[in-house]
């Protein structure tokens, strides 16, 4: 199964990178979202895959019995998902504003700041 997930991560990563390199900003943001998923899945896989053993202590038991899924990466990913959402929301507003000010969503037209 790990190989399947490795491929999924690779595809997400490649897709995200490809989108990041488009000229339309909206595509860039979609790319960012894909990269976010890739990052989360990567952390998830790093903690190793375990089927059907969530890190929840069953009623009656005092502590988790092995094997169980590693709770720490899950906590990390939870944080990352929420922050990712914050970033996305920020991105969408920023794009909207930039589009209104600059009048284009083509990044190649946004070169007022560069050069010498």
């Amino acid at each position: 199964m790990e190989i399947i997930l490795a491929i999924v991560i690779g595809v997400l990563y490649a897709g995200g990178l490809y989108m990041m390199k488009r000229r339309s900003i909206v595509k860039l943001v979609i790319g960012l979202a894909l990269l976010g998923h890739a990052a989360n899945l990567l952390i998830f896989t790093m903690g190793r895959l375990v089927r059907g053993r969530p890190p929840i202590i069953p009623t009656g038991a005092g502590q988790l019995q092995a094997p169980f899924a590693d709770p720490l990466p899950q906590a990390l990913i939870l944080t990352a998902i929420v922050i990712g959402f914050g970033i996305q929301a920020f991105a969408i507003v920023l794009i909207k504003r930039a589009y209104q000010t600059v009048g284009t969503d083509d990044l190649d037209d946004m070169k007022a700041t560069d050069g010498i």
Partner: protein
Amino acid sequence: MSIVLACLSGFALAVASPWLYRLARGATGWLLALFPAGLFLYFSSFLGTCIAGNAVYTAYPWIPTLGIDLAFFIDGLSLLFALIITGIGALVILYAGEYLHGHPHLGRFYAIILTFMASMLGVVMAGNLITMFIFWELTSISSFLLIGFDHQREQSRAAALQALLVTGAGGLAMLAGLLLIGQANGTFALPHLLSQGGAVRQHPLYLPILLLILLGAFTKSAQVPFHFWLPGAMEAPTPVSAYLHSATMVKAGVYLLVRLGPVLGGTEAWHYLVTTAGAVTMVIGAVLALWQTDLKRILAYSTVSTLGTLVLLIGLDTSLSIKAAMVFLLVHALYKGALFLVAGAVDHAAGSRDITQLGGLARAMPITATAAVLAALSMAGFPPMLGFINKELLYEAKLQAPRASELITTLGILANVALVGVAGIVGVKPFFSKRHTTLQHAHEVAPALWIGPLVLAGWGLFNGLWPDVLVNPLITAAVNAVQPEITSVELKLWHGINPVFGLSVITVIAGVGLFLSHDLWFRENWRAWLLQTTSRISPQRLYELGLVGLNKLARAQTRLLQNGYLRYYLLTIVATTIGLVGYTLFMPGLPTVTTESKLDILVHEGVIAGIIILATIMAVTTRSRLAAIAAMGTVGYGVALLYILFSAPDLAMTQFAIETLTVILFVLVIYRLPRFALLSSTPARIRDALVALLAGGMMSLLVLAAVAGPFQSHLAPYFAAHSLDLAKGRNVVNVILVDFRGFDTLGEITVLSVAALGIFALLKLRKEH
């Protein structure tokens, strides 16, 4: 303590001088001149100690962590320099008060020149290499400010910058050399370095160290091919040229060579490098001096020649050559300082420094003329001037050079003949040749303008007649500081008739001949041709071309790299990352990438993975905005499903919720943005796709490599064991978030709030405008 005060009080006075000028106005020059005069007397009191070959050393910890002390070191060598700096300093300050009379920024001028004086004293008296370097750079900076003092002119700014860049660059090279010396010897303190002798000479980095130090010395002392900044620096007001660019600052390189001679010298490399640079500079400077028309530029090139001679003598490294160098240092400061000040007085009185226009000034300016002639005689080496004694010594040292003495002596004669001619051109011609019609009404200058030159030139005569009074003790002290054995220098005016005297006579006769035939060979069309030819191949031209080239390179590379295309930026980042991370993947010790799964593949999981992959491809390729967003949502839900299947229900719930919100947000905004257009060309898309696939593949490999190895979470068992008893929670992920790692969650909330505030700021501002 008093040494420290003597060195540093100049800085305090510099800060105060603009206010002093507001109070005392015209008398400021006289008042301020008292300060260096007092220092001169103070330093004279060290003469006795230094003659015996002893040194005074005081050190105060300044930056102990770097081994830098505020240390001062006075031996005969420092003393000779200190007396020149303060003695001429007093006269120059006095002179400047009159020369720049009424200049709106005279107060500022005093401040800078006093800063320079204090820094220069610092250079020659610093007892710690780094402290010396700091003072060294301060002299460069104050020289920059002084050359650019008459800053309305484009030329003077360019010259100031050029001088600072050349000497500053050399200085920084020297710093690298000094750091290495410090590392090799374990100390920056001068007395310790001198007592350790040649430890550096055995160091594996000896040659780089030597080259770096020489770079510093040669740029500062205007050795070919770095000499070009010195004539350029003549843009400075004349008192500055007299003081910095002939008597003191340009000799700092010479000082450094003599000072570090016991540490770095005595090797073949030292001998050849230093001697060659000196000999070449000596000849080129003297020859170029003959072809100038501007009094100050003539003097500048002759100074270059002198500096070359000094460096040559140091490279010869015999006790005779060192003695000759010390005497020459003193003589040159006296006559060249006087001649510069005379040039300034002439400029002041007659309104020109062009020798083709000057003539017959002796009647109008008798005192200045006297000073000029005396100085010129000393420069030309006529008896009974000190210059004569010096010339004899120079020839003696060159004749006894350890290698190639014939060649060196011949070059020496060549340079000296030219310098005799130069002495006539600057010291005699303006005053005694036929009076020129275009001159404005010349008049004798104010006392402050002739005291300086007359005193300096007069000393040349006095010391030539009675060398025992001052010169012998001073030179004895200086030589004893450098030479291991204590000697007593006995200079005499008359040595009898010997080969050296013969050379002196030949030089003078040839030089006078050169001067008298000046009008013949100094014709405009000749001169123009010569200057044009030399300027085409001169280092000055190289410097200018280098600067232009650097600017072009700067523009070109900025345009190339800062091209404004975001995706190229991203491409660069990704490519660098692939390089950096990919390279680690091929390091030895990599766990074999295995396709052998630890978990078997279940069909429904495979289907979900397939859906994610398909949705990703769709999001990437679709032209419809809505389809892209839908595909993105699908990816998100697919990932959430994976979380459920692999025991992470909390993640799945969060992912579902967030994904829904994101999609809604997108849909709300999307219709306010333009449609997707096919903006990139096909080759660009293929290139991007290849890079992306490469990076994606690398990530996949990394994952496989990672999961192949064994894994032991250090923290999971702890959380698993203690969630319930410590935090009273059964959902371990939740417990971690709100309890064990509650601080993370606080941070997370902060991040979200900041994002919200940012969004608010952006939206609100939009409304307002």
